[in-house]
């Protein structure tokens, strides 16, 4: 296991966004320039931050020897790195903005505020009260002493987005600006179209913006473990690409599958849009020598980062309705107001999970260690692999034993089209091995913390007000209906 603060100490300018590729020079032939493919010579770069070095060999300076890099607990980080967060108003965008700003990065963000609109349309709202973006930025300035730049720009608005990128020249991008809801994407042709358009055109715009205005920046795109599906064969979910010793046999022949993209099996139009996003990124990195990391994130939950804990005015949004809430968050909310914890179908569906806090740590480590030019990297960002039933039981137990609640668990008809009994093995090694990640959370503590926050009067009231958005109605097969209870009062 790597020392968590040294995982990227040996990386060089080859991985750094501040570098500019100039060409090849052969000093055996008096520094002659070489532009064509057949040329001999030394690849030279210039550093945009340290112009005075002139042309140099990019492999000859390591992060730990470079004055532009600062040692942090997450590894060496480019001083004042310019990071642009797409979707900064969201559940993950806002905590990341705060964390990066506190680490000394220059944080820029955009958001089209669509999430707030769509949640309101549904008759729901964030159950942690949140102010406007301007108010939150003001609080961050006062309470954390950081400046965050925000523009209300839609990622799908090419002109505005390109202009902002050209102005800022980010050194890293975080693509969080996608509609993340599977049930939403299945509700109607309109919502499916909106999801696919927003997510794919947004990512496409980002790739072109990088190509034209920030080709040495790295990008981290939020993908989802759901891209892989859950193969009934029990094939483990490798991290995006087949390992070198994976072999395909057919008839008498065999072929190596090393490095090929692993099969995708998306279970909703939202997941389909993520799969396309993966291909968009994978291709663009190859065509344009871009640096990209595709994060196959497990279901994220929790609300517990040091920055978020500072003050309620720094809250991130917290959704609990059927369309916009993630399962563990929903279970806690249901327990708090005495609504039944709803398990879809058998409850044996297994997924990977990760807390917001751990996800933030991962993202920063990934930002600190950009890939090489042209490299498309994939990580499975998961810490715990659990079944829905186990989670419901854990939430209910904690609610009863520690918070004097009387939670009930119900199994209902599954509105989704998905396998309910399936093997599920997730390979999730890269973040630990290559990026020094070490989980700082555990499921039970995170659930406890959520109970504490959601039982505060302000939150409890908001959950009550959204009560009837808690129970799922949306069918994958189209339309809505009142789902039947298959088993009431499960033990826990």
């Amino acid at each position: 296991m790597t020392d968590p603060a040294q995982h990227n100490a040996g990386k060089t300018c080859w991985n750094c966004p501040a570098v500019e590729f100039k060409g090849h020079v052969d000093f055996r032939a008096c520094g002659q320039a070489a532009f064509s493919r057949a040329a001999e010579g030394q690849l030279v770069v210039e550093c945009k931050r340290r112009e005075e070095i002139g042309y140099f060999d990019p492999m000859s300076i390591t992060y730990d020897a470079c004055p532009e890099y600062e040692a942090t607990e997450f590894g060496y980080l480019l001083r004042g790195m310019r990071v642009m967060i797409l979707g900064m108003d969201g559940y993950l965008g806002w905590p990341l903005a705060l964390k990066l700003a506190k680490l000394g990065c220059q944080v820029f963000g955009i958001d089209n505020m669509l999430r707030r609109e769509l949640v309101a349309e549904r008759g729901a709202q964030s159950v942690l009260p949140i102010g406007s973006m301007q108010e939150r930025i003001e609080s961050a300035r006062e309470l954390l002493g950081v400046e965050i730049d925000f523009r209300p720009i839609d990622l799908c608005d090419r002109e505005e987005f390109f202009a902002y990128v050209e102005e800022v020249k980010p050194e890293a991008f975080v693509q969080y600006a996608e509609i993340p809801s599977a049930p939403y994407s299945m509700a109607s042709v309109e919502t499916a179209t909106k999801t696919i358009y927003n997510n794919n055109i947004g990512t496409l715009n980002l790739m072109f913006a990088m190509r034209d205005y920030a080709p040495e920046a790295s990008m981290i795109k939020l993908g989802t473990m759901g891209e892989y599906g859950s193969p009934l064969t029990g094939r483990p979910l490798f991290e995006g690409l087949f390992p070198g010793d994976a072999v395909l046999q057919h008839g008498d022949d065999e072929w190596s599958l090393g490095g090929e993209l692993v099969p995708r099996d998306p279970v909703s139009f939202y997941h389909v849009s993520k799969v396309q996003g993966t291909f968009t990124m994978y291709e663009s990195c190859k065509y344009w020598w871009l640096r990209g990391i595709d994060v196959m994130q497990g279901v994220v939950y929790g609300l517990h980062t040091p920055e978020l804990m500072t003050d309620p005015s720094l809250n991130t949004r917290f959704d609990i309705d059927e369309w916009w809430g993630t399962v563990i968050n929903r279970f806690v909310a249901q327990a708090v107001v005495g609504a039944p914890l709803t398990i879809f179908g058998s409850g044996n569906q297994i997924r990977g999970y990760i807390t917001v806090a751990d996800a933030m740590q991962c993202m920063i480590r990934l930002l600190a260690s950009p890939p090489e030019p042209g490299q498309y990297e994939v990580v499975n960002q998961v810490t715990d692999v659990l079944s829905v039933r186990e989670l419901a039981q854990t939430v209910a137990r904690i609610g009863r034993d520690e918070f004097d609640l009387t939670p009930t668990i119900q199994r209902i008809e599954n509105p989704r089209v998905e396998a309910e009994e399936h093997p599920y093995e997730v390979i999730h090694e890269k973040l630990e091995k290559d990026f020094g990640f070490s989980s700082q959370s555990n499921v039970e503590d995170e659930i406890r913390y959520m109970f504490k926050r959601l039982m505060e009067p302000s939150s409890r009231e908001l959950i009550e007000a959204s009560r009837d958005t808690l129970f799922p109605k949306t069918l994958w097969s189209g339309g809505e209906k009142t789902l039947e209870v298959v088993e009431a009062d499960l033990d826990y």
Partner: protein
Amino acid sequence: MHHRPVFVDFWASWCPPCKMMEPIVDRLAVEYEGRIRVAKVNVDRNRGLADRLNIKGLPTYMMFAGGASTGSLTAAQTERKLRGLIDEALIAGGPEGDTDG
């Protein structure tokens, strides 16, 4: 002077199979230690060499024995095929040369 055959792995950052094959190549390097040398050549940083050897696809695994190429394979390979490439060169190279000095 070393006369061991050389296994050259041509790779690039934008080639995912190249990266995924690394552990296999490393494993073979350990297994054949003392009998072959293993070199990894990044084609973007060594374009002249890559071009002179006519590297058209990545990864390319090339064996050299006695100063000439004894064979090459392009694309990710099963371990079996890589061993085949190496073993052929060991046979072609004749009995083991001098031990390392």
